[in-house]
């Protein structure tokens, strides 16, 4: 068979690509020769190649023309030219979705698939399965079953892989071929074994027992294919994760044994599986790390990459486990593959000592412009982690980051840098000015609105408190002149903060504000007008309330309240105090600093946990008319973890009532509990008003019962109380298998641990971005001060944490962080007391033998001050 393309193609153009100037219509025209007799295999082959080439280039074929070409192509089955026939199969697969009535080739393909020519059989199966649907699959089922166990490997593999593709479409049919797949799995051919294993797993993955059996079988008998080993390792580690199997399980042993496999692919898969296991100890990691260490010096770039990437992952959680590889990693930092070099350096930054930081940073800056954004983000994250570890290095880092900020890069990359700079500023007050200056420079030419607004907000917060606030005004006002609406609005807000805090800047700010009042955008104009009027009053309290410390209500709650208000018109003005407070943002743990997939957050503002509770409680008729849910506590465990019944309690605080929600779980499969309630005996003047029992508590289905308690009204300072709790219920024994309960039951009770209500349950955390302003705003009308000695506390850190958790208030101005090597500290706490009274606490701490604490409390309500001081004492 000699193939030679048309002279015309060969001579056209540069001569380098015979397909360069193909016209779809011309090719389809040519396809008419398919109908000529006798068939000219060489020319037809060439035309089919052109068609497939065009499809591959993304040329669009209309249904009619595709169908026409497809039908013409079917004639080519008369030829016995091997390559031509194979190209027909390809054409069928390519056109399966664009041409109509492709099923007309079914019989030709079935013939080829069962015929004598082994070369045709595998590809024919694959083509056939591509055009087959569920109904037609039944017709060829017999052939498929035969093909799966065929002794020709290519036929068996093709049948297995095609079956796998069809699992999605017709699971029920393919499921019936499990025995055949089982037989194929013991084939001597490595690919057949791999494919059979893959198909078996897909058919059985929902049946854990079957998967376990399958794993046992193959781990015992051993496999031939390295691919199959990789598959088995993945199945085993998934199973380990699901069953939370300990590392003494045979599955873990299997994975570990694969570290000694002769194929690098399998060794790497096993090492990677071990590294990715949750709660792996350093000892279990060691063998995996040492094989990865070997790979680091491999001549194959892919292997080095794989190894160093996995080591990087290990270094995030167990830096010490990787220290042994430091020497090998050092050799990789000059690797010609920049991805490998970057990963090696960022790993070393995590494991190395402080002294090596400068050298590594210099190395990485030599090629940072060559690497892709993904890796640049990795670098930034490594720097960010480093700054936390070695705060003294911040000047080197800041310099490096500012250079990176000037380079080109996508949004993710810039965001990572900005986040990193901001966190450095927060951690190191002395780096604030340099950091702000870099950020100012960045927003001069920043195309990302989100980053610009974020930086402007930061400038507004931090700028006024720097020694020379005036230098930031120019940068901010430039935004007002040059940017989009959102940025302009943010810039106006930032300007207002400068005006409010710096009296000497106020006149200039007012002039600028006046100009902003002529802005074309509503929001910008509104803000400018609003701030202008507030600033002109020159009242500290107004500034604090409306410029520094914004509303602390939850936005979904506000939306709901306002909606409710508009539905029920009333004479009374809308009261902000009826809106639930925003729960303080949950501290996001940034433990995984290096490559982390940022989870996609839901688009809407998610209702907070408290909003959900509010709705749940409001649905219970007994709890109508309690008003607004003020605070819900974290769940408190009232039982040990491994007991018959597991009970935890959530305390919901209302204006003058509390609801205790007991989430109970019955862990006995031979019991059904009914009418479950928790009886409470208060130690103080609290009064239990009502119990709402859980009607029924079947095995392992959590249910909730509630108790409604009235807070003592005559003594507003009685905030803490201890309840002894007993769970009471009706037991009905039942058959563990069917869950069918006996007719009779008996009453029983179960003693729970005591439940404490503390002052923290009455206070909601609120963040005041500017504590000083808020402090002035409340004034010293209800101020009280007292000094305490905390004899048992040994460090300032401990004292700070104790106070915060005891009072349940929000630390402001980052005062929860005690600077190192200091003997005194001031802690600022803010919160809202039940009933909507703002409360602020300033606590001066001094470290001598124990810790001495001077607490100053200010609040809008006198009782609240007493409550706080009484509870501390």
């Amino acid at each position, binding site marked *: 068979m000699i193939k*030679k393309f048309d002279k015309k193609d060969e001579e056209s153009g540069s001569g380098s690509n015979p397909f360069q100037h193909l016209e779809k219509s011309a090719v389809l025209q040519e396809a008419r020769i398919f109908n000529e007799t006798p068939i000219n295999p060489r020319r037809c082959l060439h035309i089919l190649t052109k068609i497939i080439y065009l499809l*591959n280039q993304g040329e669009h074929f209309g249904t009619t023309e595709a169908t026409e070409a497809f039908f013409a192509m079917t004639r080519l089955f008369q030829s016995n030219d091997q390559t031509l026939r194979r190209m027909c199969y390809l054409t069928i697969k390519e056109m399966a979705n664009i041409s109509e009535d492709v099923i007309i080739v079914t019989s030709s393909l079935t013939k080829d698939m069962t015929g004598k020519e082994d070369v045709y059989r595998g590809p024919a199966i694959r083509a056939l399965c591509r055009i087959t649907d569920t109904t037609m699959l039944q017709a060829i089922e017999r052939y498929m079953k035969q093909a799966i166990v065929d002794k020709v490997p290519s036929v068996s593999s093709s049948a297995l892989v095609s079956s796998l593709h069809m699992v999605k479409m017709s699971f029920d049919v393919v499921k019936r071929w499990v025995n055949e797949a089982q037989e194929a799995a013991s084939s001597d051919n490595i690919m057949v074994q791999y494919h059979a294993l893959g198909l078996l797993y897909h058919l059985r993955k929902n049946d854990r027992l079957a998967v376990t059996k399958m794993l046992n079988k193959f781990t015992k008998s051993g496999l031939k294919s390295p691919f199959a080993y990789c598959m088995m390792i993945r199945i085993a580690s998934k199973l380990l994760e699901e069953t939370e199997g300990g590392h003494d399980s045979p599955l873990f042993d299997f994975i570990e044994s694969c570290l000694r496999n002769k194929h690098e692919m399998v060794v790497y898969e096993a090492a990677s599986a071990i590294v990715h296991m949750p709660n792996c100890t350093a000892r279990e990691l060691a063998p995996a790390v040492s094989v990865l260490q070997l790979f680091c010096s491999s001549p194959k770039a892919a292997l080095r990459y794989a190894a160093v990437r996995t080591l990087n992952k290990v270094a995030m959680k167990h830096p010490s486990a990787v220290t042994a590889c430091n020497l090998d990693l050092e050799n990789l930092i000059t690797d010609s593959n920049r991805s490998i070099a970057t990963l090696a350096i960022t790993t070393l930054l995590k494991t190395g000592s402080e002294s090596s930081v400068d050298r590594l940073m210099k190395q990485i800056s030599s090629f940072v412009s060559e690497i892709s954004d993904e890796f640049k983000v990795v670098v930034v994250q490594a720097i960010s982690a480093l700054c936390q570890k070695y705060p003294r290095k911040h000047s080197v880092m800041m310099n490096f980051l500012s250079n990176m900020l000037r380079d080109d890069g996508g949004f993710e990359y810039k965001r990572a840098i900005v986040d990193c700079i901001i966190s450095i500023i927060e951690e190191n007050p002395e780096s604030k000015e340099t950091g702000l200056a870099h950020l100012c420079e960045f927003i001069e030419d920043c195309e990302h609105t989100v980053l610009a607004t974020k930086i402007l907000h930061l400038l507004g917060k931090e700028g006024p408190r720097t020694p020379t606030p005036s230098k930031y005004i120019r940068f901010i006002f430039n935004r007002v002149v040059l940017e989009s609406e959102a940025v302009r609005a943010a810039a106006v807000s930032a300007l207002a903060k400068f005006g409010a805090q710096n009296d000497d800047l106020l006149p200039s700010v007012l002039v600028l504000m006046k100009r902003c009042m002529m802005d074309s955008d509503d929001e910008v104009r509104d803000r400018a007008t609003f701030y202008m009027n507030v600033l002109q009053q020159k009242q500290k309290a107004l500034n604090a309330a409306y410029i520094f410390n914004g509303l602390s209500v939850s936005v979904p709650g506000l939306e709901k309240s306002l909606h409710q208000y508009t539905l029920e018109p009333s004479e009374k003005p809308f009261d902000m105090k009826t809106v639930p407070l925003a729960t303080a943002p949950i501290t996001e743990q940034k433990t995984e600093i290096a490559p982390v997939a940022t989870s996609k957050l839901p688009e809407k503002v998610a209702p907070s946990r408290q909003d959900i509770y509010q709705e749940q409680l409001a649905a219970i008729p007994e709890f109508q008319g309690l008003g607004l849910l003020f605070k819900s506590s974290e769940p408190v465990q009232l039982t040990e973890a491994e007991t018959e019944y597991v009970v935890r309690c959530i305390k919901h605080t209302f204006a003058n009532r509390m609801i205790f929600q007991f989430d109970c779980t019955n862990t006995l499969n031979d019991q059904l509990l009914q009418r479950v309630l928790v009886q409470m005996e208060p130690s103080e003047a609290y009064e239990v008003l009502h119990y709402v029992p859980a009607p029924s508590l079947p095995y392992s289905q959590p249910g909730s019962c509630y108790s409604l308690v009235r807070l003592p009204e005559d003594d507003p300072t009685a905030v803490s109380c201890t309840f002894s709790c007993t769970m009471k219920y009706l037991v009905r024994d039942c058959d563990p298998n069917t869950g069918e309960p006996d007719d009779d039951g008996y009453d029983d009770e179960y003693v729970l641990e005591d439940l404490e209500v503390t002052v923290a349950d009455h206070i909601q955390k609120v963040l005041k971005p500017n504590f000083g302003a808020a402090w002035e705003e409340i004034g010293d009308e209800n101020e009280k001060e007292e000094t305490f000695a905390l004899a048992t506390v040994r460090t300032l850190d401990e004292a700070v944490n104790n106070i915060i958790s005891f009072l349940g208030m929000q630390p402001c101005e980052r005062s929860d962080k005690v600077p190192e090597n200091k003997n005194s500290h001031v802690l600022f706490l803010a919160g809202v007391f039940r009933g909507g009274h703002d409360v602020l606490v300033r606590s001066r701490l001094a470290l001598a033998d124990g810790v001495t604490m001077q607490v100053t409390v200010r609040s809008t309500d006198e009782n609240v001050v007493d409550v706080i001081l009484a509870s501390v004492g």
Partner: protein
Amino acid sequence: MVGLSQHGRLEGCSCRHAPCESEGFRSATVMTAQSCPRQHCATTMDSAALEPSLYTVKAVFILDNDGNRLLSKYYDPELYPSMKEQKNFEKNVFNKTHKADNEIAFLEGMTIVYKSSIDLFFYVVGSAQENELMLMAVLNCLFESLSQMLRKNVEKRTLLDNMDGVFLVVDEIIDGGVILESDPQQVIEKVNYRADDSPLSEQSVAQVLQSAKEQIKWSILK
């Protein structure tokens, strides 16, 4: 990491902590209008556990030395569903890889292994979590098979002259993302394709010269 509680409030976006600027709800109206950056984060390099599956290869493509597509197959319908996205991806990959022969790269959240030969670039793409060595096995098999089929002349001209064979080779190595065969010898046997071995006399002297010149040119330029 104390202090991150405030970190959230520093952001000028409203995805979690809506009142991020001083006057609370007023700003929230503006801010919700703009998109939150976290929703369209590029996939980063996290490696969550991999669902055991035979679907290893996301895409395979062969480009010429200008980055033009000669052959490409995408096996994951969710990855770059449109032709435009595919070509953008190929362009991006080509730009990042054609200068240095580095064998492996990580782009747009994908692991890419590659290899070049004279004026051709071969790429195999897998997910970020994929075993890099499995992808390498596919790439090596593809390259070796083509090299055998084209009698070691792995260059654009010969490749295009035997494009039908190339399509068949790819079809034998990967089926819908599943590695069908990884041994080049097996692939060659299954394809059973003989390259254009037209005797020298059939080509004009000028053509031979031309092709020799191009080969030399590329070997120098490399």
